[in-house]
């Protein structure tokens, strides 16, 4: 649920990186933090990790200003993937406006992917969100590891879902991370624009929304 505060002309959106433990959610966020160069970017808050594992969540705020003065914020969260942190996952997931599901491409992790996806469906329902209308991207991470499940097979498997095509990524190497994020922004814009008429009222077109929030250092370098 977008949080619009009319007094401050401030719209806060929430995107949650969901997935099984150790699939690379935190790595995704860290890469976004270092790769992205949006109009506004806050600190990456990596909360209390133990043995490299997220205990609470990670959070990265980024932002954009519309020509109406709209203060558009996007807060990117990760959830802890371990089974026992379900209540934290639920709390973070509540009022989410979009989800990036980070799956692990290794064959041994397919069951965990399925379990985590089931858990996502369940928790979305519990927090009153509809998985069929919620903007969502499914990313298969760790493509750099040899012997991962074949992309064609994965794409085929997911072809009939609303989340096709899947985005292949190697968060560790920074590949596919921005692509996943941009895909999500694209889907998110459709829903948010419908409700807040971003383009008409605030001069934020789809193009400005996506590029403004996902501008990357690399892209700028490329431009030069």
């Amino acid at each position, binding site marked *: 649920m977008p949080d619009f505060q009319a007094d401050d002309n401030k719209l806060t959106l*929430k995107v949650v990186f969901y997935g099984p433990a150790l699939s690379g959610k935190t790595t995704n966020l860290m890469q976004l933090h270092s790769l992205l160069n949006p109009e*506004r*970017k*806050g*600190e990456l*808050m990596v*909360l*209390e990790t133990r043995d490299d594992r997220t205990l*609470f*969540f990670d*959070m990265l*705020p*980024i*932002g954009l200003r519309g020509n109406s003065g709209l203060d558009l*914020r996007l*807060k990117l*969260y990760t959830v802890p993937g371990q089974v026992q942190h379900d*209540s*934290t996952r*639920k*709390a*973070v997931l*509540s*009022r989410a406006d979009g989800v990036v599901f980070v799956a692990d491409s290794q064959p041994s992790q397919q069951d965990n992917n399925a379990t985590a996806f089931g858990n996502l469906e369940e928790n979305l329902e519990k927090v009153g969100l509809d998985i069929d209308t919620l903007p969502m991207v499914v990313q298969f991470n760790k493509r750099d590891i040899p012997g991962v499940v074949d992309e064609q097979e994965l794409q085929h498997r997911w072809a009939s879902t609303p989340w096709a095509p899947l985005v292949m990524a190697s968060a560790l190497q920074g590949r596919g991370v921005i692509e996943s994020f941009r895909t999500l922004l694209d889907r998110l814009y459709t829903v948010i624009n419908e409700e807040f008429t971003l383009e008409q009222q605030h001069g934020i077109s789809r193009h400005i929304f996506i590029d403004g929030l996902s501008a990357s250092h690399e892209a700028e370098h490329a431009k030069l």
Partner: protein
Amino acid sequence: MRSFEDDPTLQELLSADQLQRLNRALSGLCKEPVTLSEHKAGDSVPVEFNLERVGWLSGGGSRDEQLAAAELVSFLMMFVAKYRLAANLHHDTTEASYAELQRQNEALKASETRFRELSGKLQQTVDEQVDVIRQTQQELFESARLRSVGQLAAGVAHEINNPIGFISSNLRVARDYVEDLKEIAPDTPANRDLLQDFQELLTESIDGTSRIASIVADLKTFSSIDQADYSLCNVNDLLQSAVHLVQTEYSHSLQIIERLNELPQVSGHPSRLSQTFFNLLDNAAQALRDEAADDASGRILVQSQVQGDTVRIVIQDNGCGIPEASRARIFDAFFTTRPVGSGTGLGLTVARDTVRAHNGNVTIDSHPRTGTRVTLTLPVKGS
């Protein structure tokens, strides 16, 4: 309600004391004192943290000092905010878990209530079953007792039957001899008195033996309860012959009213049914004799009729009735309200056991000084 992810204000991040201390520490680093506050003042610069302006910093020796101090504050804020975020999230999830726990607790309580109701019902069923078992056990015990009493009675009856037979016939012969002696002996007043007395003694003894014989007969019936010899009986015929027998016994002095309706035949044990009817009529006659100073008002009503698929037999008298204190025991074998010697007390027990053996029922309705009504029902179809 604020959620854990709402951007925190300066007040939420730092207490007043902490803010003062921070101001002191920052001022110590700068040429001029600096002040961090939530409100903009004169030359202040904004302090931002995570895209959010958390406060304004004023004072300082120069713009650079202000900016440096502001940067230091936002760096510190990151750690404070991190802790806040984690703590708030923890608080939120704990509350959610608690709410969930309470919901589960409510559900548990509801199911516990259901369980308790169920267990109450179960207890009631168990109690009922225990009652049934207890009653069955009592009946079993009673019937076992009756059976053993019956066996004893059968043995005693068998043993007594022979001697009582010859005692009785000897006594009759002896009475004849006394007649003979009257002829032979000299007719003196002393002899006459003696022989008269002798004869009366023998007559009393003969009465006694016939009473014993009748007890023995009762005992034989009583002990033959488990014998099976069933045939189709005409209950009215059996009732009529029992009436005749009892009239004979009472020298036709009884006023017995018969209201016998047409009945289907009943599968049963004719001699035992006869014995039962006889016993009940005999009881009724005794009750009249006990009550009646004036014999003429004593009446016995014998009634039979079909009722559904049963035959209903009523034997009713307007005699002395059974005192309430005795009513609970009226079916006890050998229990009798009459003076010892006037009856065996087996009548009602035999009646009940016989009727039960026929899958029927006996009820007794009695009021002292008003009379007694015994109602028997026998199923037409037998068992």
